[in-house]
């Protein structure tokens, strides 16, 4: 086991080196196979570790000592406990499925090897993030996934707007990272170590430092805001749809954006002692969930709808964290990874069939041409809206129940966001797969189901999306044994308090019933609107009023541009043209000019005239004698 843990981490890294260095000269099948096998190997290793984490819940491996300067000691250490092994399973499992899918999706792309190299590198960094045993190595992985996100969003770098989207993602991430870094510095200052076990064991002795803990947790949360696309640092995620669809599925749905959730769950002991921060987390999460849902309502690009859906669902997860339901957040993270990856891969299948078209106004009636895609998309859609008995149903309901125990008003707003989620997902679903085909004749002729290498991952994820609910069935339905995930996380001190409030069974039945009714009502209303009445989205020029605001993303990007980007560019211009060019370059040039003038002056001494030289000698001699006399 001690050797297995670093091996799990190493396999994707070796895959990266292989694809990156040799992939260009090898056939695509080989590259794709090796890359996928690397991740599969990591997955099998994680499965074994998962099996081992049952009897022994905590494994630590010190790979090497990284920094040792006086009191400051950081080891490159790995910690495999029940939380990290769960994340490892998700990362490598879904990662493997997406690698296989990408073999089909990217098969005609000249940058095939580079793509798989970046994907493997991403898996490596994400694994490092969740397997680290201290905050600094975690941060190493954190930055690494940000880097891979940049590389993959801007994969088709020939397109300038994609490059801009990649830069936007990276820079917004960086802003959050500043908070995270300062938080890590403070952690070290408070606890003298960055190792999780050290910090959490010293925590009980720190009773008096609540103010400091609030600041630290806030800073960590700022980092999570950047990475997990919450208000105000969320605008990068819809733009990140510029990357290839497997990237959107893996990074911006299932794994990288969940790093923020992971950070908060890992630091749950710190957060439990900072109730103010938890309040802020709750409100930010709820606001994001609602805001993003409303924007998604009027988007016409299939991937943009899913992107805003991701932002909204992440908000829901943060809402759960804020009320202290850490296990519920992890449960929803898991189910969301299943169905969101499925939805993105399904969207990719649709885009692939439509020859690159992403506008749902030009789709329609695709269920006949794309049967497997259609049925798996059905599974994903039903899961995300919370149709009874699917995975999303259980995870969302658990969050809603926990929120209700905390505050019924918050529950109402969370229910509203779930309702809006159902509305935009049904809109997307019906407009894409039902009705008449609204594209061009060439596109109609090109429509075909995706190859097996793309449909098998869809099927696998669909099965997971449908059955994933068994992980955590609430007590009032299945008795005490249904909550497998809560039991699994029992060994982690921070998460043991997974059940925050205790509602009566009646209350839980009522809540579950209400949600189900809302979901069914939305499904029926959407069916009536989009299928029976064949309502279509308006063309861009005809949208008015609040719909225009939603379609234009409530002008947040324009707001940021006006209050942040333009002033910074102006300042940058001033610093460049005046401070840098005129002042600094000027003073350096001045020195040069002065030297030149001086030398031109002194050159005149060398006039070749012998008498003049003799005179110089005599003068010098007299001066020396005089100075000797004076001094």
């Amino acid at each position, binding site marked *: 086991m001690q050797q297995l843990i670093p091996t799990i981490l190493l396999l994707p890294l070796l895959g990266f080196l292989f694809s990156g260095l040799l992939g260009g000269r090898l056939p695509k099948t080989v590259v794709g196979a090796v890359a996928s096998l690397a991740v599969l190997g990591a997955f099998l290793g994680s499965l074994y570790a998962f099996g081992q984490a049952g009897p022994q819940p905590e494994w630590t491996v010190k790979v090497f000592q990284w920094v040792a300067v006086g009191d400051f000691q950081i080891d490159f250490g790995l910690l495999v406990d029940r939380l990290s092994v769960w994340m490892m399973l998700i990362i490598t499992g879904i990662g493997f499925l997406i690698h296989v899918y990408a073999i089909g999706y990217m098969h005609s792309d000249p940058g095939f090897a580079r793509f798989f190299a970046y994907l493997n590198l991403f898996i490596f960094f994400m694994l490092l993030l969740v397997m680290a045993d201290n905050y600094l190595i975690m941060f190493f992985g954190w930055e690494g996934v940000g880097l891979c996100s940049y590389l993959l969003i801007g994969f088709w770098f020939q397109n300038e707007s994609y490059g801009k989207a990649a830069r936007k993602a990276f820079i917004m991430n960086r802003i959050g990272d500043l908070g995270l870094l300062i938080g890590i510095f403070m952690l070290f200052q408070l606890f003298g170590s960055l190792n999780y076990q050290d910090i959490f064991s010293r925590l009980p002795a720190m009773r008096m430092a609540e103010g400091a803990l609030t600041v630290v947790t806030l800073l960590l949360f700022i980092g999570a805001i950047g990475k997990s696309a919450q208000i105000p640092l969320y605008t990068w995620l819809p733009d990140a749809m510029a990357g290839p669809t497997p990237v959107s599925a893996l990074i911006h749905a299932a794994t990288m954006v969940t790093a923020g959730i992971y950070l908060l769950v890992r630091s749950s002991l710190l957060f439990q002692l900072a109730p103010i921060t938890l309040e802020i987390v709750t409100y930010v999460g709820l606001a994001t969930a609602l805001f993003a849902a409303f924007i998604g309502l009027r988007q016409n690009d299939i991937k943009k709808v899913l992107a805003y859906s991701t932002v909204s669902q992440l908000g829901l997860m943060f809402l759960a964290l804020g009320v202290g339901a850490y296990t519920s957040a992890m449960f929803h993270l898991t189910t969301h990874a299943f169905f969101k990856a499925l939805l993105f891969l399904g969207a990719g299948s649709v885009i692939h069939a439509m020859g690159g078209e992403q506008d749902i106004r030009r789709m329609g009636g695709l269920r006949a041409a794309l049967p497997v895609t259609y049925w798996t998309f059905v599974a994903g859609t039903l899961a995300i809206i919370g149709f009874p008995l699917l995975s999303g149903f259980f995870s969302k309901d658990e969050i809603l129940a926990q929120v209700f125990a905390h505050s019924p008003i918050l529950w109402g707003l969370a229910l509203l966001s779930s309702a809006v989620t159902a509305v935009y997902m049904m809109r997307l679903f019906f407009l894409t797969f039902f009705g008449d085909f609204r594209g061009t004749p060439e596109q109609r002729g090109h429509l075909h189901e995706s190859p097996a290498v793309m449909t098998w991952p869809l099927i696998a994820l669909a099965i997971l999306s449908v059955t994933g609910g068994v992980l955590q069935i609430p007590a009032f339905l299945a008795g005490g044994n249904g909550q497998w995930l809560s039991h699994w996380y029992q060994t982690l001190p921070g998460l043991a308090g997974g059940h925050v409030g205790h509602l009566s069974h009646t209350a839980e039945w009522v809540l579950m019933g209400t949600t189900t009714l809302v979901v069914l009502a939305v499904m029926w209303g959407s069916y009536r609107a989009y299928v029976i009445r064949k309502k279509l989205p308006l063309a861009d020029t005809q949208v008015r009023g609040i719909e225009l605001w939603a379609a234009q993303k409530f002008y947040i990007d324009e707001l940021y541009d006006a209050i942040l980007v333009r002033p910074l560019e102006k300042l940058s211009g001033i610093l460049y043209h005046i401070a840098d060019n005129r002042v600094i370059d000027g003073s350096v040039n001045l020195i040069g000019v002065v030297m030149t003038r001086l030398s031109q002056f002194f050159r005149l*001494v*060398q*006039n*070749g005239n*012998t008498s003049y030289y003799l*005179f110089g000698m005599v003068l010098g001699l007299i001066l020396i004698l005089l100075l000797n006399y004076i001094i």
Partner: protein
Amino acid sequence: MNSAIPVLQAIPIDNYLWLSAILFSIGVAGVLMRRNAIVLLMCIELMLNAVNLLFAAFSTYLGDASGQIMVFFIMVVAAAEASVGLAILVMIYRNHKTVDVSFLDKLRG
């Protein structure tokens, strides 16, 4: 010889100092101002002889023979240096057809 010494010592040393200084200054002035190379060499000789005179005067004044030994050294060096200087001067004349030092300005920068 010994009877001459008190007579010589009766002359105050100041006179010798002034004479030597004036001779030296004339020599320096000549070196700096004259253009004829031969005159230049002569002025250098003049400076050396001024110093010689001073050495001899002090030798008598202090009753120490070292000064006169120094005079010998200086004379030897002056002779050698004058011969080399004249040889160079002859070469310059052969190349430039003149002994005017103001024409030797090829080293100007």
